C-alpha cells in the first residue's frame, strides 16, 4: 500500500504527538529536578526556560556521596542519604526478579508441557493469588517477618517481592512456553534427551525473549512497590518509593528533592530495560502469531 505524502506527514505528526503526550510528564519531572524552589510553582509555569540548579541533587545525594556534610536541616529528617537507598532498591529489585523468574520459568515449563492431574485448577489457583489485595496480607506478613527475623532485611523484602511477582511471572512464562511448539520437545525426547536437557538446551534459549519481558515486568513491579516495602522495613532498609514519601513534610512537599530522586531512580530501570531490550521486543511479540 502506498501512502500519499500528506498522509505520511500526518502520520508522523500523530506519532510525535503521541510520543509527546507520554514524554512530557517525564520531561517536566526531570526538569523540575533542575529548578530552584521558586521556579517549581512559578505562575505561569516555567516549562521551557528557568534558572538551572544542581542544588536538589546535591541535597538528595550529597551527604551519601561525601560532598555535602551533614550540616543542614533538611526535610526528610536527614534521610537525604539516597545513594544507599537506591542501592537497597537495586538489590531488592534484581534479586527478587532473579528469584521470581527462576522459579516461574521452571513452574511454567512444567505447567506448559507436563500433564498432571488438576493442572488447569493449579493455573487458576496461581492466577487467583493475584486477585488478593496486598493490604490484606501486609499485616500477617508483618507478624511473620517479625517472628522469623526477616523484618527490615534485604532477604525479607526480596522474598516478598519475588512471591508477589511469582503468579504473574508463571502465567506469562507459561504463555511463552505454550507458543513454542511441543513437537520440538517430543522430537528431542525421541532422540533420547532428558526433560531437563530439553528445557535447558532447547526450550530456554527459544524463550529468552519471554524471560526478558517477564524480568522487566518483575523488576518494575519490585522497583515501584510501596506497601510491603513500607510495612516490612524500618530504619536499616528503605526502597526508593518509601523514601520518596519522606519528602512530604508537615509544612509542605520538597518537590525539587523528590524530583531529583525520581529522576535518578528512573535510570537503573531504564538501563535494565536497555540491557534486555533486544530480547524484550521479541518477548512482547512472541505469541502474537499462531501457527
Amino acid at each position, binding site marked *: 500500500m502506498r501512502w500519499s505524502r500528506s498522509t505520511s506527514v500526518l502520520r508522523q505528526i500523530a506519532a510525535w504527538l503521541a510520543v509527546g503526550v507520554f514524554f512530557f510528564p517525564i520531561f517536566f519531572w526531570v526538569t523540575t529536578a533542575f529548578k530552584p524552589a521558586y521556579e517549581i510553582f512559578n505562575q505561569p509555569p516555567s516549562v521551557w526556560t528557568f534558572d538551572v540548579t544542581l*542544588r536538589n541533587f546535591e541535597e538528595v545525594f550529597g551527604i551519601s556521596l561525601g560532598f555535602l556534610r*551533614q550540616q543542614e*536541616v*533538611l526535610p526528610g*529528617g536527614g534521610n537525604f542519604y539516597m545513594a544507599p537507598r537506591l542501592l537497597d532498591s537495586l538489590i531488592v529489585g534484581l534479586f527478587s526478579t532473579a528469584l521470581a523468574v527462576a522459579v516461574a520459568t521452571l513452574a511454567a515449563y512444567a505447567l506448559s508441557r507436563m500433564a498432571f492431574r488438576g493442572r488447569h485448577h493449579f493455573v487458576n489457583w496461581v492466577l487467583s493469588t493475584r486477585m488478593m489485595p496486598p493490604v490484606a496480607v501486609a499485616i500477617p506478613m508483618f507478624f511473620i517477618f517479625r517472628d522469623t527475623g526477616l523484618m527490615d532485611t534485604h532477604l525479607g523484602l526480596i522474598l516478598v517481592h519475588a512471591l508477589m511477582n511469582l503468579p504473574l511471572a508463571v502465567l506469562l512464562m507459561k504463555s511463552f512456553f505454550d507458543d513454542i511448539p511441543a513437537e520440538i520437545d517430543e522430537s528431542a525426547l525421541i532422540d533420547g534427551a532428558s526433560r531437563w536437557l530439553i528445557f535447558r538446551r532447547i526450550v530456554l534459549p527459544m524463550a529468552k525473549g519471554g524471560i526478558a519481558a517477564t524480568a522487566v515486568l518483575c523488576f518494575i513491579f519490585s522497583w515501584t512497590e510501596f506497601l510491603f516495602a513500607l510495612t516490612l522495613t524500618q*530504619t536499616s532498609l528503605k526502597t526508593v518509593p518509601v523514601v520518596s514519601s519522606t519528602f512530604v513534610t*508537615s*509544612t509542605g512537599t520538597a518537590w525539587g528533592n523528590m524530583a531529583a530522586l525520581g529522576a535518578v531512580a528512573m535510570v537503573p530501570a531504564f538501563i535494565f530495560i536497555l540491557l534486555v531490550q533486544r530480547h524484550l521486543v521479541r518477548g512482547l511479540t512472541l505469541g502474537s502469531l499462531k501457527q
Partner: protein
Amino acid sequence: MRDHDRKLFLASLTDRYVKRQIDRRSFLRSAGQLGLGLGAFGLGVTRPFGGHFTPVAHAQDLRPDPDVLAWVREVSKPFAGTTLKLATESTPPSNALNSQLKQYFEEASGIKVEIEVLPLEQVLQKLTLDIASQLGTYDLYYIDQSWAASVSRDVFDPREQYAAKPDLAMPNWNIDDFLPALVDGICVYEDRWVGVPYDIPIFIMMYRRDIYEQLGMSAPTTFEEYLRQAQRISAETDLYGATGQMKSGHYSLECDWTAWLWGHGGSIFNADRKFSGNDELGLEAMAYWDQLYKTMPPGVTTWTWDGQGQSIAQGVAATMMSWGEFFPYFDDPSATKVSGLMEAVRCPAPVRSLRTVEETGFGEIPGVGHQGGSSLAVSMNSKAPDAAWIFMQWVTCQDTQVLITTLGGGTGPTRNSVYDDPRVIANNRVGPGTTRHLNVVRETIAKDMGSEPDLPEWAELSNDTIPVRLGKYFAGDYGSAKEAMDDIAKAVDGIVRS
C-alpha cells in the same frame, strides 16, 4: 587566626551569605580560606519548607549545653549499646533532631537512636500496628494531638516516670515550663498526660504588608474585616485576597473548617456530645466560609497546606490564616517571592464569644488559633523504657528545644523559656529560619488556641468522615450547607454512638 576569631568570621560570613550579601562562589572561597572547604557550604544554604538552612546565631552557641550532655553521659551508662527507635512525621523539630542533634546524644550516651521519618499517615499506620501487636518495635511514639485519646493507655505518663525514677530524672527538666495551654490541648486525656508537648504548628494570620500598605489597610482585627479586606484585595489587585487548604477528604480541610466554626462561636460537639456543626452558628460559619472561598485562587479545593503555602510563596494570594510554621519559609528569598513582605499577627477576633469547654463535648477547646501539635511519649511496649525516657527528657529539655527551634527553621517551641532565649531571639530578622513570628505564636497559644476534641474515634472523624463530606459540599454535591452539615451530623453521631 585564633579559633574564636575564626568562628566569628565564619558566623559573619554565613550571615552575609544567608542575607544574599555575597554570592555562593565568594562564600565558598572565603570558607576555603578558613580551611573549611566545600563542607562549609552546608552552613549557608537556604531552602524551602522545613528549614534547609543554618541560623544566624553563632555556630559555637548551637551546640548542646555541656552540663546537659554530662548528665546524659552519667545516667546512660547502664544503657550503652541500646538502640532506640522512633517513627515521626517529617516536621522541623524531627528533622533538626535527626539531621544534627541526635549525634550529640549518641556520643554522650552510647545509645543509638534510629529515627524513621515518614508522612503523618504512615506514622499513624506504624504506630497503630505497633500498639495492636504490642511488639515494642518503637520505643518512643510521636503522637499527633488527634490520636492522643487512642494511645493514652499505651504510653507512660511522663509525670509518673519523673517521680518513679528519681535516679533517671534530668535536673531542672522543669515540666512546668511547658506552656500550660499546650499541655491541655495536646497531651492531657482524662487524667493522664499522653507524653509532653513536642511541636506546635498553630494558626496565625499572615499577610502581605506591601499589599496592605498599597490599599491603605491594616491587619484585620475581626472576621468581618478580614472578609472585606480579602474581597477588596481580590477586586483591586492582581492577587487573591485569601487562600485555603481545602482538599476534599484531607485533614487540612477539617482544620480550615474548625477555624471558621469556632470563630463564629460554634463547636464540633455540644455538651451532650452530639455533633453541633449543623446548628445556627455552624451554618453562619459556613456562610462566611462560602464568601471567603470566593476570594481564593482556583484550585484551592485541591490543595492541602502545601498548595496553600505555595499560593502565598508565589505571590498568588495575599493573606492566609494557617500554620505559623510557614512563616520562616516565606522569609526565605531563595524559595519564595515574598521574602520580607510577609507579616504575622494574631488571628482576627471571633465574631462572638467562644463556647467554653463545658459547653462543648469531649474536651474540645474552641479558638481561632487551631493547633495541630504533637507530643512525644515512651511506649509501654518498649523493651528499653528507661533509655527511651532519658532520650525523651533530653529531646524535650530547654536546651535541646532552643537548638531545635534555631536549627529547625523557626518552628514554635513548646516551652515558655525557649521563646526568650537569646539564641532564638538572634534569629529575629528577615531571612530563612526567622523567629520574628514567634511572639505571635506564643500569644496565640496563650489567648487564641483551639483544640480538637479528644475521643478515640477522632482520627477517623477528622481525617475522613468530616473532610470527605465538606469536600462534597464544595464540589456542589449538596443542595445547601444545611444539608451537608446534617449529613455530617448523622455520620459523626453514628460513629460516636457505635
